[in-house]
Structure formats: C-alpha cells, structure tokens
C-alpha cells in the first residue's frame, strides 16, 4: 500500500509527460492528457544503464537538452538499457510496462549514440529528436574570435560542440553565419574583401563561395528563408540600416523597411514574414514585415526590455530573443504575436533547433568572452559545449 501510494505520487509528479498510466496493481488505465509544452515543466525522468564513455556522454547530453533528466532506474519512468555489444539497447516504459524501442546501431561512438538518442526521443515523445539532420549528426555554425575580439573565422561543429572545424581561414572580421536550409551551405558576413562587410554564400561541399551582397554602406546580418530561396539582410545603402530581401543568389534585392535602425532579421516558417529588431520612437522593439511589403507590425515584449536578435521557432509558435537590461542579457521567449515574455536564462543570440524547444545560444563568461550553450527552453535545462578558442558566438542551428 505504501509502495503503491509512493508510485501514485511519482506518477502525479511526472504527469506532464505521461500519456497513459497504469497504476501498479490496477489494470484500469488512467488517462492523463499530455499538456502542451509549457515553461517550467518538469523533465521526463529516464535511466541509462550499461552505457559507458563517449556513448554515455552523448546520450546524456542529447537527452538533457531535450527535456529529460537522468535518474536512477528506480526513479525513472523510462529505463534505457544497453544491449551490451556495440551501441544500442532498449527503452522500457515502466508504467506502461512495454518496450518502446529495441535497436542496435552500426558504427561506434558518438555518431551511433546520437542516432540512438534520436530514436529514444521519438519513441518516448512521438516527436523527432534533434540529434540527426538528414542522417548525420546535427550541426551548428558559429563565429570564433581567437583573441576574444577582432578577426575570426566561421566554424561548424556537431551540435554538442564535437568535431569542430573551421569553414573559413580569412583572419578577417566575420559575423552572423546562417545555414542555407537543407544544404551543407552557409551565408555569412565577412570583411575579407576590401575590409568591407559583404555577404558571402559558401557551399561547404565544394568549398566554392561567392559574394551575394556587396553594397555601399554595410551589407550585414544575413538570414536564409526556411524554403531556401531568399535571403533577408540589413543594408544601409539607402541611408539607414534597414531590412532588405533578395533571392538567395543576391538578385532582385528589395527594401522592406524604412525604420530608424533595424537589426537581426529572421524568418517565419512559411518564408512569408521577416522578424527583426528595430527602434520606434527611440525605443527598441521587435517587429515583423511581410516580404510583399507594407507596414511593419510591432511585437510586444513588455517586461523584457531592449529586445534584439529574434529567432522564430520552426513550429511558428514562439520567438526567442535577447533582452538587455544594463549589462545583463537574458534569453527570453514570447508568443509569436507578442505577449508576456518568459525569461529562460542569462545569455544572448538564441537559435532554435528543429524541435522548437531546444536552442543554442551564446553566454558571456570572464572577460566578456562568449561560450556556447544548448538549452531546453521548457525545462530551462542547459549544458555548455566545449569552447574552440577566445570567444565563440553567434550560433546557428542547421535545419
């Protein structure tokens, strides 16, 4: 009796994550509807048994940043056990008393562990995991400045910071790497030519790159539309830093805004709207504009002052952004049309993963240098990733 009460209490505690629950000794299923993702929701408790080394490391990291907590087998709702040989194992739902997944993976080490983690997340939540992107370990791109400021390079790495490699070797100011959706290609801002900020398109498969925006004034802050056909950017050739849109090859450039000071454009999932930071009557705000033109619409983030660096979640429900108050910087999330922002954690420049709950962001550390961290916004669980050198910032999650 005492035991079943204890289990009932545990069930209540983890109710947020449970779809169907059998109380011990009771064959009538208790239906608990899964609530929508909400802020401050408890993590889903899982156990990992029989895993070691880098496989264990990768599984822990991947599950933690997608809203799971790693607990003992007795406290877990799902037991994940190693098959012993190679990478793989099975996932048991302790309350549903059923096996959700049993699989082994070819290859070894981290890559196989990421593939396993991807399947674990899908088996438990019914939604795809973030560990893989088109069959390979998911990647991020970011900026590295060895001295902490000044010239730097664009790097790419796995989303846990492993397997980092430089994508450029220009020793020039570089900024705002942005993935071209569905391709191993980046757009970024580089000052490698003439000391001027131009926007480059860089195919990482072939190594070929070309300049796609090179105007008088700055050509900065590229962001590629989710359908891969267009680029949003900030140009100042018209007299102010404003939002422009062009085809992905840089042709057909059109000015969309005439505001005081626009920055950090990003896209709605349908590639129809551009969200950005601007100033209205000297006050910073988030706003959006249709790529067909027309007036800008302000997006309220009341309570989160000085918003900048917005990024729209791939499901179109949220905007993650940086709020600045003096020398404090917070990652905040607000509903897509504005409203009450949630402060998630201290940090800057969030970029969503495809699951619309995990983000990679930059965090100020000693000496105002940045390190990167991966965060689950709903449980607010975050893990730092290894620093390359100096300052690592402006991360972008490949989608």
């Amino acid at each position: 009796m005492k035991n079943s009460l204890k289990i009932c209490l545990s069930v209540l505690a983890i109710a947020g994550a449970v779809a169907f629950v059998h109380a011990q000794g009771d064959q009538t299923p208790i239906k608990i509807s899964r609530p929508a993702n909400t802020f401050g929701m408890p993590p889903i408790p899982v156990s990992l048994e029989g895993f070691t080394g880098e496989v264990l490391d990768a599984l822990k990291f991947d599950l933690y940043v997608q809203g799971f907590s790693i607990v003992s087998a007795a406290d877990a709702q799902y037991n994940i056990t190693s098959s012993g040989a190679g990478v793989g194992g099975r996932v048991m739902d302790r309350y549903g008393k059923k096996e959700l997944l049993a699989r082994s993976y070819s290859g070894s080490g981290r890559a196989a562990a990421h593939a396993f983690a991807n399947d674990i997340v899908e088996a438990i939540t019914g939604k795809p995991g973030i560990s893989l992107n088109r069959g390979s370990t998911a990647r991020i791109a970011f900026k590295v400045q060895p001295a902490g400021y000044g010239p730097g390079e664009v790097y790419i790495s796995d989303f846990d910071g492993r397997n980092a490699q430089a994508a450029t070797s220009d020793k020039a100011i570089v900024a705002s790497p942005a993935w071209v959706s569905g391709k191993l290609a980046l757009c970024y801002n580089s000052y490698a030519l003439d000391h001027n900020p131009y926007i480059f398109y860089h195919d990482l498969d072939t190594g070929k790159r070309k300049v796609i925006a090179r105007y008088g004034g700055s050509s900065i802050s590229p962001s590629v539309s989710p359908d891969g056909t267009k680029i949003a950017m900030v140009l100042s050739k018209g007299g102010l830093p404003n939002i422009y849109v062009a085809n992905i090859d840089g042709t057909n450039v059109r000015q969309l805004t005439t505001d005081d000071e626009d920055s950090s454009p990003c896209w709605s999932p349908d590639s129809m709207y551009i969200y950005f930071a601007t100033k209205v009557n000297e006050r910073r705000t988030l706003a959006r504009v249709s790529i067909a033109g027309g007036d800008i619409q302000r997006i309220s983030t009341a309570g989160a002052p000085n918003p900048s660096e917005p990024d729209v979640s791939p499901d179109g429900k949220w905007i993650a952004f940086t709020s600045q108050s003096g020398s404090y910087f917070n990652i905040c999330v607000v509903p897509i049309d504005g409203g009450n922002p949630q402060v998630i954690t201290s940090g800057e420049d969030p970029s969503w993963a495809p699951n619309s709950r995990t983000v990679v962001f930059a965090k100020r550390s000693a000496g105002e240098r940045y390190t990167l961290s991966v965060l689950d916004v709903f449980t607010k669980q975050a893990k730092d990733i290894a620093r390359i050198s100096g300052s690592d910032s402006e991360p972008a999650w490949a989608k």
Partner: protein
Amino acid sequence: MKMIKLSCTLALALVFSVAVTGCHGHKPKLNPMGARVNPPPQEPGPGPTFGNQGGGDQSTPLTGQEDRQTLAAQSIYFNYDSAAVKKAERAKLDAVAQYLSNNRDAKLKIEGNCDERGTEGYNRSLGEKRALSARGALVKMGISASRIVTISNGKDQPKDPGHAESSWSQNRRDDFIIIHEGAGGNVNGS
C-alpha cells in the same frame, strides 16, 4: 603602370586564394576551403531610397588603398547606446570636411564601432548608424555624398579591449579612413 596594376591584381588574387585555400584535412566529406572566391555578381542596381538621414544613397562600396593615419586624431566618440554626433565632436568633423575640401581626389570611409555592452546583432546595426550620422553631417557641410561610404565593425574592433567605462568610451566611435581608389586593395583583416 599597366604592369604594376596587373601584378597588383595578381598579388591580390594570390593572397586571397591563399587565404581561402588550405585544408583542415581530417574530415574529407566536408571541404570548406576548396576554391577561390568567385567575383561578385553584377550589381543588381540600387533599390528605392527613402529619406536622407545617412547622407543619402551609397550604391557601391569603396575599394582602394587605406590611409588610417591622416585622420586618426579626428575619430569622434558617442554616448552609450546613441548614434547622435555630440556637439563636442563637431570640430573634428569640421577638420574631416576641411581635409576632403583640400584633397579633391580623396574619398572617405567611415567605420562605426561600439562598446561591448550590447548584443552582436544590435551593435552591428548601431555601429552602422553611428557611421551614417557622421556621413549625414559631412554631406550637410557640403561634401559630396558620392565621396563617403560607411561600414560598421559592430563591437569587433575595440580601440581598447578593457572592460570598464574608460575603455568603452574609446570604443563607441567613428574612425575616418582615407581611401585612394584604384591604388590596390587590402584583402585581409588589419
């Protein structure tokens, strides 16, 4: 002269191909550093223009030899989170305008910079706004807009990399760089 120009171009091409070539080897599938940078595409032509706040349109960038010394003392400084040219800085803008009046062939690049107390995305636009403010002021003083371009370095080029107001006040600035067009460019960062 033609010979010099040609060798300049070759040197430039060489330096840049060196800059973008070279391989990090251990991951053959990804070959980020394979090829040279293609020439920029045809200029798509200027977009519509609105207002005249930054001194009006600037359709193409300036390229050429940079002289960062001559006007180094004329750098102007800004208040925190502001792109307004301060009254105390007007005399330095007058000196820049005077130089441009006396040197009719010289062109000017204004680089706007920020301190580290802002996000990277915000500061990249704020730096541009600071450069445009000075450009607008110089155009009002009668300097042709066609002689002045602007860029932003965001917070990437602090004059003083310290972490207190004494450093920050040096970093919220516009630098004035004279460009001698057609005299060869600079490829890599300074």
